[in-house]
């Protein structure tokens, strides 16, 4: 069985499993990964990377959360 076969079999299973995950939660791993990479490309010390990652997580979360709130408000007005 080739990877292409496996992927074809897995597709409906994956889609079904992910259907039960709220869309917003799918963005969280990206947020965490981006925060870690942003912090680790600006620091060398592990403690500083950890601190920086938390700061980036706060910033990105606040900015994207703000955009989400704005979109929700606009959607409720439409």
């Amino acid at each position, binding site marked *: 069985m*080739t*990877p292409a076969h496996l992927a074809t079999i897995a597709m409906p299973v994956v889609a079904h499993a992910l259907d039960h995950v709220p869309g917003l939660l799918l963005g969280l791993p990206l947020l965490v*990964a981006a925060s*870690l*990479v942003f912090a680790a490309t*600006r*620091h060398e010390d592990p403690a500083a990377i950890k601190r920086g990652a938390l700061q980036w997580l706060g910033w990105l979360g606040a900015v994207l959360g703000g955009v989400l709130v704005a979109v929700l408000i606009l959607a409720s007005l439409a």
Partner: protein
Amino acid sequence: MVAISPDDGSAIDLREPARAALLSWLVPGLGQLYQGRRLKGWLFMTAIVGCLLAGLWIGGGRVAYCLWKPGARRLEFIGQAGIGSVALPALIQSWSLSTAGRPLLPGGWFAPPLMLHQPVAQAYAARLQRSEPALTFYRDARDNSLRSGADQLSVWYLALGRFFDVGTLYVTIAGLLNLLVIYDAWAGPLRDAEPAVAGDAGPPRGDRAKAGR
């Protein structure tokens, strides 16, 4: 070549920056491991390869490919090309598929979708018919070539729905984040601009930290 740590002013041995950058392009974090920066290497590898694999899993293995034809340009590939282990096979598959009859890499990974009426090799068509029964093929009476009777991208969208886009987003962001990692392997940590303090004509922050020790 040596860079200065922005945290404590210590020297960071970048060994051969060009080689490290190339390694980081091929596999995120590999350049940092080559430089002996183990923590950062594993961190980058976990974060970016994790995003990449999650994206491929969410997108059923279909979301990373190169298609650059008029009317069907895969702009996301610009971001995805930030990871060499994705970009290279995707480019090879795209090049192989552009001429019917050329064999594809094993497994068909990173192959672009067939467009409607696109000529296709017999072996690849047979493989696709087994793995994706919704696809159809026909013989063109003019040149007796085998052609796709369906738009494969539509078949993928039908099977995956919004998860095709979610998977694409994951892989594209992984590629874009890797650009920062490549820069880190090439030139060391990014440094924020030094704050301009009136009357402070002292050395850069790293050197100040050294002087304070």
